[in-house]
C-alpha cells in the first residue's frame, strides 16, 4: 500500500477531467467562470492553463446556450463537459436537457447520440437561501434518456466522472457544495467506477440505510453512534440514481428487513419515494417495518443558519428515526 493519497473532492474532479482531456482530444469544457476563475468551487482549477482557451470555454451567462451548444457539438463527435454553476440555474436550461439531450437519440431512431456531461452543484449548507441551495435530482430521474450521478466522496467523484465522460448518453452529474473541500483517498493509478453499481459503505445486519451525496457521510457518522447502542446499520450509496442498482438495495433489505432512505431534497416526490416503492414491489414480504424517508422538509431553503440546518436531515435526526424504527 503505497497509495494512501488523500485529495479533496474538487481536486478529484479536476484530475478526472484532466485525465480524460489528455486521453480524448474531443473532450472540452464549457461554462460560466470555469476558465480564468477555475470554477466558483475550484472544480476546473488549472485546466485553462493546461489545455488553453480552445478547450476550456468561458461563456456568457446563458445556461440554455451552454447546454444547447454542448448538445450541438456532441451531435457531430465532440464530448463536452458543461458546468452549470448552481443546479438552481439549470432551470434556464431545462428545455435543452429534457426536450433535446434526453430525447434526440430516441426521436432519431438511434441515429444521433448526445454524449455530454452536465456537471452541476446543489444542496444546502452555506446559507445561500432558496435560489442557491436546492437538491433537484428527482426532477431528472423522471426523464427517460438521462443518467443521474450523485457522488458522495472524492474517490467516487473521480471514478464516476471519468465514466460519465466516456459514456455516450447525457449525464447529469450532481456535486454537493459542502463536499468540495472534503478529503478522501484517491489512488494515483487510473480507475473507473461503473454506473448502476451501488457501494455498500458499511455492512450491517439490523437495518438498511440508503443515502446519497452529502447525506452518506452523515449516515456513516450516525451509524457509529448507533453501533454503540447495538444497532448495526448497512449503509448503501447508490452513487447513480439512473441507472439504479436495485439488486444491491433489494438484497440488503431482504437481509435486514428494515429500510430508511436519507436525502436532502424535499420529501414529497423525492428519490426516496421511488426507492421505497421499488422495495415495496420487490421485497414487501421481507419487511418488518414500513420504509421510512428522512428528507428535507417540504419548504424552500431558508437563509438563516439554524433554520437552514433544521430543514435538512442531520445526524441527530437520523439517529432518532433509526432508533424509533429499530425499537
Amino acid at each position, binding site marked *: 500500500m503505497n497509495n494512501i493519497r488523500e485529495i479533496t473532492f474538487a481536486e478529484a474532479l479536476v484530475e478526472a477531467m484532466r485525465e480524460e482531456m489528455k486521453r480524448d482530444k474531443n473532450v*472540452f469544457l464549457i461554462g460560466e467562470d470555469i476558465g480564468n476563475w477555475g470554477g466558483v468551487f475550484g472544480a476546473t482549477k488549472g485546466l485553462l492553463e493546461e489545455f488553453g482557451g*480552445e478547450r476550456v*470555454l468561458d*461563456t*456568457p451567462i*446563458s445556461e*440554455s*446556450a451552454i*447546454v*444547447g*451548444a*454542448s*448538445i*450541438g*457539438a*456532441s*451531435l*457531430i*463527435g*465532440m464530448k*463536452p463537459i458543461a458546468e452549470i454553476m448552481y443546479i438552481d440555474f439549470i432551470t*434556464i436550461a431545462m*428545455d*435543452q436537457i429534457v*426536450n*433535446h439531450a434526453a430525447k*434526440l*437519440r*430516441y*426521436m*432519431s*431512431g*438511434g*441515429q*444521433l*447520440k448526445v454524449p455530454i456531461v452536465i456537471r452541476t452543484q446543489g444542496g444546502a449548507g452555506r446559507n445561500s437561501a432558496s435560489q442557491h441551495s436546492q437538491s433537484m435530482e428527482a426532477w431528472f430521474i423522471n426523464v*427517460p*434518456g438521462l*443518467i443521474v450521478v450523485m457522488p458522495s466522496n472524492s474517490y467516487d467523484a473521480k471514478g464516476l466522472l471519468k465514466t460519465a465522460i466516456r*459514456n*455516450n*448518453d447525457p449525464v447529469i452529474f450532481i456535486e454537493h457544495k459542502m463536499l468540495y473541500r472534503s478529503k478522501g483517498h484517491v489512488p494515483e493509478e487510473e480507475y473507473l467506477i461503473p*454506473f*448502476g453499481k451501488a457501494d455498500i459503505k458499511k455492512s450491517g445486519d439490523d437495518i438498511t440505510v440508503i443515502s446519497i451525496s452529502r447525506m452518506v457521510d452523515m449516515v456513516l457518522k450516525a451509524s457509529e453512534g448507533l453501533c454503540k447502542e447495538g444497532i448495526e446499520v448497512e449503509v448503501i450509496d447508490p452513487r447513480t440514481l439512473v*441507472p439504479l442498482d436495485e439488486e444491491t438495495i433489494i438484497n440488503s433489505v431482504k437481509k435486514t428487513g428494515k429500510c430508511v432512505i436519507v436525502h436532502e431534497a424535499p420529501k414529497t416526490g423525492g428519490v426516496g419515494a421511488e426507492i421505497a416503492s421499488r422495495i415495496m414491489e420487490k421485497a414487501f414480504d421481507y419487511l418488518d417495518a414500513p420504509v421510512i424517508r428522512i428528507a428535507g422538509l417540504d419548504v424552500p431553503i431558508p437563509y438563516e443558519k439554524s433554520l437552514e440546518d433544521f430543514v435538512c436531515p442531520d445526524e441527530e435526526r437520523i439517529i432518532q428515526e433509526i432508533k424509533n424504527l429499530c425499537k
Partner: protein
Amino acid sequence: MLLKMYELMYMIRRFEEISLELAMQNLISGRIHSAIGQEAVAVGVCTALDRNDYILSTHRGQGHALAKGTEPERIFAEIMGKANGLAKGKGGVMHLCDLEHGFLTTTGIVGSNIPIAAGVGLAIKMKKKKDVVVCFFGDGAVNTGAFHEGINLASLWNLPVLFVCENNQYAQSTLSKSSTMLSELSARAKGYNIKGETVDGNDVISVYKSVREHMKEIRGGKGPFLLEAVTYRIRGHFEGDSCSYRSKEEVEGWKRKCPVLKLKENLLKKINKVELTGIENMVEDRLREAKDSALNSGYPPREIITEDVYSNL
C-alpha cells in the same frame, strides 16, 4: 441549376400535397405542419450548400429535408409511423433526422434549435473543418430567449452558422407584427454585431443569391449570418387549423405570389413547356413510388419502444 431548383420546389410542393391527401385518408396519425408556399426558402438555401453541411430545422421541416437530399420514401414512411421511416416511426412529423445527409434534427420547441446550431458550429470550428450549419426557424423563434443566447454565442465565437428566419407571418395564430416592433427581423443581427439581410422568401433566386454571397464569409470563419426570408404559410399552422385568425383575401393574395409558379413562369421564358412537364412527370413518378413504398411498409414492432433510450445500459 434553375431546373434543378424547379425540380426540388415542385417535389416539395407535391410531397406536401400528397401528405395532406394521406392525412385526409387517416394514413398519417400526427398533425402535418405544411410548408406549402415556403418552398423557395428551403430550395434557395440548400442549393447553396455543400454535401457535408448540416441542417437543423423545425416542426415544419419536410421541405428542408427533401432539399438537403433525404429520400422522400423515408420521410413518407416516418410520418406514417412505419418501421423503415427515418426514425423507425419514433420521431414522426415533428422530429425528422437524416444523419447521412447532415440533416441533424428538427425541433418542436420553437427557437430551441438555435443554441444547438451554435454548438454544431462550435464543433466544426474546433475540428477545423470548413462545413457550415444552417439553422431554420420561424418568425416566432426570434422572440425566444434561446434565439438570443444562441446567436450571441455564435457571434461571440465567430461560428460558421447560417441562421435562416423563415418569416411566414404567423407564429401559430399570432402575427409576427404583433410580437415585435421590428418590421424587418434581420435587424436583430445588429444587436449581435453580425450581418443580416431580409429577402423575398418567395423568390428562390433572391434567397439563393443572398446565401451564396455570404457563404464564403460564414465558411471562412468570419462569423454567423442572419437571413430573413419573407414568405407565407398558405395552409394552417397544422392541418385542421381553422385559420380564423386571417382573411381568405389575405391567403388568396399570397397564393398569387406562389414561389413555385414564379420560378416556372421565369423558366418558361427561356425553355419550352415540354421540358418542364418532363421534370414534373419525373417528380410525380418518383413521389408515387415513394408513397407506395411507404404505404406497403410495415409498422414497427413493440420491442423497439425500449430501444434507443440509452446507448448501452
